[in-house]
Every structure is written in structure tokens, then in C-alpha cells.
């Protein structure tokens, strides 16, 4: 009797202990890509379409091409719930499996991973989020945030406003408001907008939304009504976005003068406000819809075969396509790394070089079946971002439609800020390592 118990106890102990023991070696010729996603928690509304887009594109590559460049793709999702604690736990649990890169998908988790990336030799791809300063490749050789930073976004917003007003000189004396989440993410555009306010003579009004008050913004919008800003830029996330759009509609704010950053442009951010949201605009760095060969392939190989968690009609929505772009960057980085090193099973160090030499040209986009889906993306050793073009999309009540041309950010204004911020970061972290990674010659 007791022996039986002992055996049972030992079995349970071995079973529970197994995951904590040293990991087994990986299969040959495969590349392990962990995806940090959040399909639960308060931000799940934005997290689910992104997660679907990311895994569907990589699964499509597996189904259609058998992987990338002959290497098998092992994709694994780890649920973070947008919680830094769980994100760090995810990172620790995947670290042993030699991931080629990580996608933290949360500013909080990104900040944790930035210092460890160089030590563990696992590059961080934070696509258009995270620390803007990490665009400086000299100080952050292991962190990448293409295709544009929040400062690029804010500069395009000012440019767009100037265009609609009829020139930069018309901005003088105008009021531009920033409705932002009162957290590092939301406060990011402030220094750039302040600099531009000084230069073009417009007045900047700040409307911070505390994280606990995301769904209760009525008093803030009363202030907006009192101040009557001419333009509003919205830097929000999760439940804050639909609330802001609804409140703006309620006070009859002219919706085509409310412009959101790309993370405020989910279909479900605009839809709840009904007809009132018509005209609400949002920056975007990729196209919406399914009229691209690459999305058709995803539908054909993954969604129609029931290998995806996505609802069929949600394929092609804004945030779904963003997930696809994220995975395109992952896949292209791996492909570039394979070209540079000539081996199939690339490591984190190789993929870092791949990310640095990323060159998704028009010709390459055509091969991928994504002409017009994103603007060509290119990075370099010093510039880990590229500061690429974005456009303004407008909600027509049903879906997002393109409302402007692809617009170049004010790189000359953004870049000095980035270099200063990167320097400040390195200085405040005494002993921040100097870049030792050599720079590959660009092809």
C-alpha cells in the first residue's frame, strides 16, 4: 500500500519536476520562434487579432513552403495577458529552447527584455512599439523597432494636420491636443510634439487618461469641449480607444480631426461608436483588407483548412494584418540571416544580423505577394527602425479606407531626439555595454 503511494509520489514529482530540469537538445534544421501573445485580460480585444495574424502567417509559410529556406518553423505561443510578470515568466520558459528572436508585444515586457537581449543573445523585435530610443543601433544592437517610432507617428500627424490646414504656416496659433494614456507608452510623443509646437507656433494641450480611468473619460472630454482644440492626436490602447472615440462623437468633435496612432486603429476601436465614428482617422503602416496574394494564401492554406483560431470574416482587419506584418518581418529576418550565414538553422546571433540587414524592397514585396501591403522596409546597423512612411486611414462606418498618401516622417526632427534619448539611457545605466557586434556590409 505504502509502496504504491511512494511510486505514485515519485511519478508525480518527476512529472512536476520535469519542466524545471535542463532542456533537451533541439531537432536539427529547425528555427524556434516563440510568439508572446495575449488572448486574455483587459487588452485581449486588441491582442487576439494580432495573435491570430502573427501565427497564421507563420503557419501559412509552413503549410505552403514547408518553413523558411528549408528550415522547419517551430512556432509556439506564450500567453502573457499583457502582464509584465507573466511576460518575464514566458521569456524564462522559452529562453532554454534557443529562440531566434522575441516579440514581447507590450512596452512593459520590452523594457525588461532590452538589457537581457545582449546577454542572452536573443534579439528583440518590437514592431513600432517599445522604446523609441532603441532605434539607435549603436547603443541597442539587439533591439529592433521597425518600421516607425512613436515620434515618427506624431510627426506625421502634425504634417497631416498642416496639409489639411493648407501649409505649416497655417498651424500658427492653432490648438493641437494629445489624448494619451498616462503611462510611458502614452507619454512618448510629448517631447516631439513640444519641439514641433515651438517650431511651428501651435499650442499643445495635454489630456492624460489614467490607466484606471480608461473607460471613464467624460470629464476629460468636457475639458476638450471647453478648450476647443483644432486637432486631437490619440495615443491610447485597449479599452481606452473605443471610449475616446465614443466620447468624441458625443461632444460632436469633428471626427476627421481626431487622429489616432496606429495602435488606436483597431476595427473594434471605431465600430462601437456607430455612425458617429465616421471620419475617425488613424495612422497606419500597412494596408487593410484581403486583396493581396499573401492574405489569399493565408486564407487558402490556413484559415479555410480550419488551422486558425480566427473567425473567417475577421481576416484582413487592421490589427489582424498588423500581426501578419510582424510575422513577415520575423520571416524576412530569418531569411536574410540564412542568406548571410549560408546555414539553415540560424541562431539568435544570426537573426540579429538578419534584422540589421533587413531589406524588403518593392521587388521582394512582389515575390511575397504583398505589393502595396506595406511600404518597403529597410534597416541598417545604425538605424534599427528605418523611419518608414505611414499613411492616414479613415473609418467609413464599415471599414478602414486609405485617406492620404504614404507620408514620410520628419526624420530630421526625430533622429536627434532618438540619439539624445539613447545616450541618456546608456548614461543612466552605468556600464551599459559598448557595441561589439561587427556590422555586416549591406548587400
Amino acid at each position, binding site marked *: 500500500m505504502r509502496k504504491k503511494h511512494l511510486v505514485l509520489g515519485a511519478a508525480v514529482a518527476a*512529472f*512536476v519536476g*520535469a*519542466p*524545471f*530540469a*535542463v*532542456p533537451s537538445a533541439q531537432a536539427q534544421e529547425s528555427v524556434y520562434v516563440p510568439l508572446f*501573445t495575449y*488572448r*486574455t485580460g483587459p487588452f485581449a480585444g486588441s491582442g487576439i487579432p494580432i*495573435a491570430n495574424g502573427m501565427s497564421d502567417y507563420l503557419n501559412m509559410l509552413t503549410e505552403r513552403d514547408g518553413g523558411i529556406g528549408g528550415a522547419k518553423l517551430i512556432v509556439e*505561443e*506564450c*500567453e502573457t*495577458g499583457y502582464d*509584465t*510578470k507573466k511576460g*518575464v*515568466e514566458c521569456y*524564462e*520558459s522559452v*529562453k*532554454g529552447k534557443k529562440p531566434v528572436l522575441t516579440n514581447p508585444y507590450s*512596452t*512593459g515586457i520590452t*523594457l*525588461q527584455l*532590452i*538589457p*537581457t537581449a*545582449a*546577454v542572452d543573445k536573443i534579439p528583440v523585435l518590437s514592431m513600432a512599439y517599445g*522604446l*523609441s*530610443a532603441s532605434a539607435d543601433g549603436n547603443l541597442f544592437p539587439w533591439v529592433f523597432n521597425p518600421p516607425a517610432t512613436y515620434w515618427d507617428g506624431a510627426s506625421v500627424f502634425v504634417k497631416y494636420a498642416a496639409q489639411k490646414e493648407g501649409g505649416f504656416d497655417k498651424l500658427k496659433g492653432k490648438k493641437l491636443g494629445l489624448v494619451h494614456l*498616462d*503611462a*510611458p507608452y502614452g*507619454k*512618448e510623443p510629448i*517631447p516631439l510634439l513640444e519641439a514641433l509646437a515651438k517650431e511651428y507656433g501651435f499650442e499643445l494641450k495635454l489630456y492624460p487618461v489614467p*490607466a*484606471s480611468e480608461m473607460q471613464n473619460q467624460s470629464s476629460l472630454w468636457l475639458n476638450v469641449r471647453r478648450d476647443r482644440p483644432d486637432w486631437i492626436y490619440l495615443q491610447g490602447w485597449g479599452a481606452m480607444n473605443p471610449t475616446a472615440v465614443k466620447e468624441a462623437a458625443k461632444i460632436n468633435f469633428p471626427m476627421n480631426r481626431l487622429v489616432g496612432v496606429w495602435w488606436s486603429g483597431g476595427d473594434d476601436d471605431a465600430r462601437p461608436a456607430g455612425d458617429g465614428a465616421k471620419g475617425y482617422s488613424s495612422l497606419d503602416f500597412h494596408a487593410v483588407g484581403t486583396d493581396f496574394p499573401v492574405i489569399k494564401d493565408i486564407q487558402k492554406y490556413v484559415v479555410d483548412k480550419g488551422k486558425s*483560431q480566427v473567425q473567417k470574416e475577421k481576416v484582413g482587419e487592421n490589427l489582424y494584418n498588423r500581426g501578419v506584418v510582424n510575422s513577415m518581418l520575423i520571416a524576412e529576418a530569418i531569411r536574410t540571416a540564412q542568406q548571410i550565414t549560408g546555414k539553415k538553422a540560424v541562431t539568435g546571433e544570426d537573426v540579429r544580423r538578419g534584422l540589421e540587414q533587413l531589406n524588403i524592397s518593392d521587388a521582394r514585396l512582389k515575390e511575397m505577394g504583398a505589393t502595396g501591403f506595406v511600404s518597403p522596409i529597410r534597416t541598417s546597423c545604425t538605424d534599427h527602425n528605418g523611419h518608414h512612411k505611414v499613411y492616414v486611414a479613415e473609418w467609413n462606418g464599415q471599414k478602414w479606407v486609405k485617406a492620404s498618401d504614404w507620408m514620410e516622417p520628419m526624420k530630421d526632427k526625430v533622429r536627434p531626439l532618438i540619439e539624445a*534619448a539613447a545616450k*541618456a*539611457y546608456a548614461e*543612466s*545605466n*552605468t*556600464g551599459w555595454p559598448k557595441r561589439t557586434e561587427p556590422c555586416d556590409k549591406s548587400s
Partner: protein
Amino acid sequence: MLYREAGQFKTNYTADMAVFPILQDRIGIAVILGIAAIIIPLFGNDFLLQAVMTPFLVFSLATIGLNLLTGYTGLLSLGSAGFMGVGAYACYKLSTIFPGVNIIVWIIASGFVAAAVGVLFGLPSLRIKGFYLAVATLAAQFFLSWCFIRVPWLFNYNVSGAIEVPTRTLFGVPITGPNAAPVTRYLIVLAIVVAMTWLASNLLRGRFGRMWMAVRDMDIAAELIGIKLLQTKLLAFAVSSFYCGVAGAMMVFLWYGGAEAEVFSINQSFTILFMVIIGGLGSLIGSFFGAALIYILPIILRIVPAELGMPLHAATVEHLTFIIVGALIIIFLIVEPHGLARLWQIGKQKLRVWPFPY
């Protein structure tokens, strides 16, 4: 059978008053310490050390801190995350202003800063009790969270508004920052937690602990027998905040390696309060049980389906974990409303009288 104190005679008062009067308990605690200090560092992988044990110990310490206040002195507080934040930000400021001083000194010193802030916010406790005090401490929580976002001096005017942990060494070995090995960090956390638990257990068995418990059981009676309420309550706030502050500093410096203000939000306060309640109010070992149940159990539950090879999606596993943990908490509280510590007590008593229960 094994767990029986028959034949263990106490011949002096010291032996009789010992923390662990029974030989088996002393052996047990030695075995646990041995496993924690030798077996786990030797055989555990980084995941176990960095994502399971270190956080568990940090939460245990914070839970002990809140337990001193809520469990032993009877003052309900919802500000523990705020006090943890004070510890973390104080440690960050101190270590960036005086980089030459050893970081462990600053981790302990930041506890004193948290204690000072705790005393300040403990002042209302003299006049209000129960739910009203909870609301007053809630104000502390919101005020401190606000400071962490709005006072740029606290995070050295960092653009991202976050604090990042610089590399610091002890005897030439990096113990904080990205280069610190998980095993070093774990051992330091373990040493601090063991030392402070020992301190707490002695404090509770001494004059202060008895004063706190007297206040908890009936403050008017305590006042009548000559306990000064103001000093006693403020001291409880100070010691509790000290523990929370050290836990917060360890959380950022030895576990996260960097943090934004969001980490010390009200949710964190609730998590710690739940750990106290489920572990058992007024019990040190219960603090460890509570932290283990709330922090480690979900991790184990998340691993189970993958180990069994069940093809479940990450999100489904997460939902299942929520359901199971929630159900377990309810079951535990129905079985024993006084928390896991009481369950442990009953188990020990049953063992002592086995096989002839009465």
C-alpha cells in the same frame, strides 16, 4: 507515528520556549532550508530559479509584511503595492546617486524609506479602523502610484518613465542587472528572506508582537493595560512597510531588472492581500503557503497540459488556469476559513495523535 514528541523532555525554559520545540520540526526546517539553499541552486534550471522561486520568495516577504499589519495588528491595508513601489524607487534613487555603495545595503536601506512613508500613511489608523482604514490606505496606494508616474525625479527623468536596474557587484560577482546569473540572484533573495523571516518571528514572540496582538484582539483593553495605541500602530505600519519596501526593491532589482509604475498598481496590493487571507491571517508559515498557492500553482497548471501533450491553445490553458485556481481558492476557504496555515496546524495535530484520534 514519526511525528510524535513523546520522550522529548524540556529541562529548561529556553528549550520550552523555542520557536520549534519539537525535534521533528527542527529536522523538517533544516531539510527545507537545505533543499532551498543547496538542492535547488544545484539542480534547478534558470526557469525554476528566475521565474518560480525568486518571485515566490519576493511575494512571501511582501505577504509577511502585510501579515504583520493585517494579521497580527488587525489593521487592514490596501497600500502594500504602493509601499513596495516606495522601496523599489528609493533603492533605484539611492543606487544611482551613490553607485559606490553595495546594492544590498541599499536594498535594506530602501526598506527604511518605505517605513517612513508607511508611518505617514499610518497616522489615520489611530482614529479609524476596518473598512475605513482600508479606504485611507487605498488613498496611499493611489497617491504613491500617481507619484511614480508624475514625479520625473523618481525615475531620473527617463523618457520612457521606467526604472532600469544597473549592474552592481558583490565580491566581483554581478548580482543585479542583466549579467547577474539567476542562481546568484536567487541565493541573495533567499538569504534576505530567511533572515527577515527569522527577525519577524522573533519580533512577534517578543514585546512588540504581543503588543500588536493585544491591539488586534481588543484595542480598548490593550490601552487599559498600558499599551500606547499610537506608537504601537505606527510601529506596525513602519515594520510592515519596511518588509514591503525590501520586497519591492528585491522585486525590481533581483527579479524584474527594470519596472514601470504599472507594476505597483492596486492589483498588486490585492494579490498580496489575497495571499495573506488564503495563507492565513496571523501566521508566518501561512504567508509562504499563500504566496505559493497564488503564484506557483498557476505556473504548474500552465505546464501540465504541455507535459501531457494535450494540444491546447495558450489562451485556453490560461482560462483553465483561472478557473482551477479560482475554484481551489473557494474550496480551500470552505474547508478551512482560517487559511492554509490552519489546515497545516490541523494536519500536524492529526499526525501527533495518529493512530488514535480523539
